[in-house]
C-alpha cells in the first residue's frame, strides 16, 4: 500500500486492474486504492509480470503492506540509479479524445439521453466501469450544481456515500494540517510581482492558439516556481526522519478545491521540463481528474512543493500551511491592477502577490527571499520560461 499523501496510515484496495499473469510495464495502472482523500490509481514502476496479488478488493490495509508481487523482467533493463533519462516522458498522459471509456451499454444510452458526458463520470463498477446509477447521480448533481465548469461531481465509489467520503477527507486534512502546524515552524514572506510583461507575452502567445488551448497566467506562475526551485533546491525537498532530503525531480503540487468541499494537491511531474502547452494540458487534466476522483498514486505522493491560489475568489494574499513532509508552500493571490511607481511615475499595472510559507528547520529568510526574487525575475522575462 503506497503512501498517498500526508498522514495516510491505511488504504482500501478497491479494484485490481491487472490480473495475475498479466504483463505490466512501468507507468501501468494496476489497481485503484481508496484513501481518505481520494480514490487513486496505483502505478507500477517496473516492467515485469504481475505474479500474484496479496490483498483482495475491499480490504483495508496499512501503508507499507505489500499489495502484489511483480516479477521483474529477466534482464536488469533499467538500473535503479539511471533514473530520469531525458527521453522519459515527463507529462502525465493526457486523456485522449475518443479514448475507451468503460461504461455499460445501458449506462451509455442513459448518458446520451440525459446529455451527460461519460468522460466526466467516475464509474463505480469493476475497473471504474460506469453504471446506470453513476450516470443518474451525475445527471442529478449536474442539475443541482448548474455550475458553468463541465465536470459534475463524481458519484461515490462502491459502498461509500458522498457524505462519508467528504467527512473522511475533512478528517484527513485536519490531521495533516494539525501535524503541520504542530511540527513545522513556519515563516512567511511576501512579494508583489509586476505582471505587465507576463500578461503581454500571454496575450501575444494566445493569438495563435484556438480558444480551448489558450494559456492561463497560472501556468506562467507554475513554470516560474519550477525554474526558481532549481536555484534554491533546498525548498524542493522533504523533511524525513529529522533531516532534509533533497528531491531531484521538481514536481509542483497544485492545490485543487473540490466541489463537494475539501482539496487535494497532486503533482505535475517534472514541472520544470514541460513546455507551456504541456503544462497547460497537464494542469487541465489534473483538475479534471482530481474532481472525478481518479488521480494516480504517484501524483498524490510525489509533490516536492505545493502552490495554492485563491485568485479566483478575489483574495490578494495567501499564506499557506505546508503539507508535510514538504518544506514549503507558495501562495498566489488574484491578478489585480494596482498603482505602480516606476522611475518617479505612477502607472497602472497588473500585479500578483506571491507568498512563501517555509519550514524554518531547513531554510531561512535569506534563502527564501532569493526564491521569491527568482520567481519575480523569471516572470519579467517570459520568453525565457
Amino acid at each position, binding site marked *: 500500500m503506497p503512501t498517498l499523501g500526508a498522514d495516510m496510515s491505511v488504504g482500501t484496495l478497491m479494484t485490481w486492474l491487472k490480473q495475475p499473469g498479466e504483463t505490466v510495464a512501468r507507468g501501468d495502472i494496476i489497481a485503484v486504492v481508496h484513501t481518505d482523500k481520494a480514490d487513486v490509481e496505483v502505478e507500477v514502476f517496473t516492467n515485469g509480470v504481475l505474479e500474484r496479488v496479496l490483498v483482495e478488493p475491499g480490504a483495508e490495509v496499512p501503508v507499507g503492506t505489500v499489495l502484489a508481487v511483480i516479477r521483474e523482467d529477466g534482464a536488469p533493463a533499467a538500473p535503479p540509479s539511471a533514473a530520469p533519462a531525458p527521453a522519459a516522458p515527463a507529462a502525465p498522459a493526457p486523456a485522449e479524445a475518443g479514448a475507451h471509456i468503460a461504461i455499460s451499454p*445501458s449506462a451509455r444510452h442513459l448518458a446520451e439521453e440525459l446529455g451527460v458526458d461519460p468522460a466526466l463520470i467516475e464509474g463505480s463498477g*469493476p475497473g471504474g466501469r460506469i453504471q*446506470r446509477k453513476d450516470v443518474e447521480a451525475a445527471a442529478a448533481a449536474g442539475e443541482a450544481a448548474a455550475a458553468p465548469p463541465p465536470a459534475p461531481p463524481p458519484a461515490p465509489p462502491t459502498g461509500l456515500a458522498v457524505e462519508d467520503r467528504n467527512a473522511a477527507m475533512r478528517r484527513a486534512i485536519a490531521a495533516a494540517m494539525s501535524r503541520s502546524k504542530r511540527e513545522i515552524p513556519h515563516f512567511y514572506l511576501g512579494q508583489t510581482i509586476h505582471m505587465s510583461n507576463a500578461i503581454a507575452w500571454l496575450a501575444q502567445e494566445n493569438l495563435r492558439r484556438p480558444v480551448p488551448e489558450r494559456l492561463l497566467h497560472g501556468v506562467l506562475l507554475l513554470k516560474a516556481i519550477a525554474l526558481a526551485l532549481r536555484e534554491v533546491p533546498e525548498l524542493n525537498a522533504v523533511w524525513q526522519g529529522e533531516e532534509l532530503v533533497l528531491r531531484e525531480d521538481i514536481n509542483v503540487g497544485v492545490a485543487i478545491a473540490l466541489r463537494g468541499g475539501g482539496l487535494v494537491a497532486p503533482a505535475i511531474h517534472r514541472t520544470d521540463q514541460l513546455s507551456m502547452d504541456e503544462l497547460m494540458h497537464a494542469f487541465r487534466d489534473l483538475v479534471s481528474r482530481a474532481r472525478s476522483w481518479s488521480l494516480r498514486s504517484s501524483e498524490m505522493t510525489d509533490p516536492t512543493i505545493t502552490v495554492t491560489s485563491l485568485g479566483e475568489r478575489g483574495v490578494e494574499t495567501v499564506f499557506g500551511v505546508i503539507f508535510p513532509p514538504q518544506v514549503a508552500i507558495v501562495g498566489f493571490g488574484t491578478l489585480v491592477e494596482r498603482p505602480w511607481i516606476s522611475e518617479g511615475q505612477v502607472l497602472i499595472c497588473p500585479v500578483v502577490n506571491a507568498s512563501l510559507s517555509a519550514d524554518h528547520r531547513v531554510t531561512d529568510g535569506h534563502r527564501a527571499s532569493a526564491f521569491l526574487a527568482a520567481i519575480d525575475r523569471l516572470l519579467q522575462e517570459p520568453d525565457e520560461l
Partner: protein
Amino acid sequence: MTTVKLTYREAVRAALSHALATDERVFLMGEDLGGYGGAFAVSLGLLDEYGPERVRNTPLSESGFVGAGIGAALGGMRPIVEVMTINFSLLALDQVVNNAATLHYMSGGQMSVPLVVRMATGGGRQLAAQHAHSLEAWYAHIPGIRALAPATVDDARGMLLAAVEDPDPVFIFEHATLYPLEDEVEEEPRPVDIAHAIVRREGMDVTLVTYGGSLGKCLDAAEQLQQDGIEAEVIDLRTLRPLDMSTVLASLAKTHRIVIVDEGWRTGSLAGEISAQIMESGFDLLDWPVQRLCSAEVPIPYAKHLEDAALPSAGRVAALVREMAI
C-alpha cells in the same frame, strides 16, 4: 374455483389419467410403467385402471420404444413415452434427432409426429454420474421438437396436457427432486400455455432466469436478497425450445442486470444460448455483464457435500447477485 392439493408426482399422474380417460388414442409406454408404477411412481395405479395395452411396459430398449412411439404417432396414436432418466434417453437419441425431429420437415410437411416423451432430469439425490445430469440443453438444441421443463405442480399437469394436444414431438423434463413438491392447484385439469416464459416473482434490481429444478433455488435466493434490500425478479423459462426471449428481454429492460441459473454444464449450455441472445438483442439494456450460474464441469459426484458443491444453490445465486454491486 375449487382447488386441490397435489404433489408434482400426483399432478403428472393426474394429467396422464386425464389424457387416457379423454382421448382413446393416448397410451403410455415405458420401462416399469405398469406393475412397478414407474421408477418415480408417477404411473402408480394406472395399469389397474386402463389395462396393459394402454399402460404398456417396455423392455430396456430406449431406442426401440421411443422409435415405436414415433411410429405409433405416425399411425394415428398419441403415445406418451416415459424414459426413466435423461441419462438413459441418450440410448434413444438416434430416434429423437434423426427421426422425431426431422420427419415433418423432411417429408415436406406431409406427416407430423404427435409424440410426448417424459423423463426425469437433474441431480441432488446422490445418484452419481449416470443418473443425475441435466442434458435438456442437448434437446433444446434440436429444431423440430419442443422441450418443456415444468417447475411447478400446476405446470407439471398442465404442460403434459398441452403436450398431448401438440401435433409435434414434445419432450418434458421433470426435475427428479420436484416429485414430492406440493401445491394448491385448480381441481379441473387443463392444458397450460407452453409458448411463454413467466415471471414468478417481480423485482426491479436484477433478473434471475431459470427453469425446472432451479426455480425454487432462485426464489429462495430472491428471499435472501430481499433482506439485503435487493429486489430480484425471477423468470421461469418453462419452455426451453423454442425459447421465449421476449419475456427475458422485457425483464432485462427493467432491471438491466441478469443472472442465468442453469443446472446444465456451463460450456455449451442453455445459459450460454440465452446469454448470446441477450448480446444480440438486449446488449443496450445491460448495465452489468450477463452472469451465469451452472453446474460445476464434472460428472455429478455421489458424496453429498461434493454433489452440493457441484450444483447451483440458493446461496450461490444470492452471492453472485451481491457481487454485482447493486
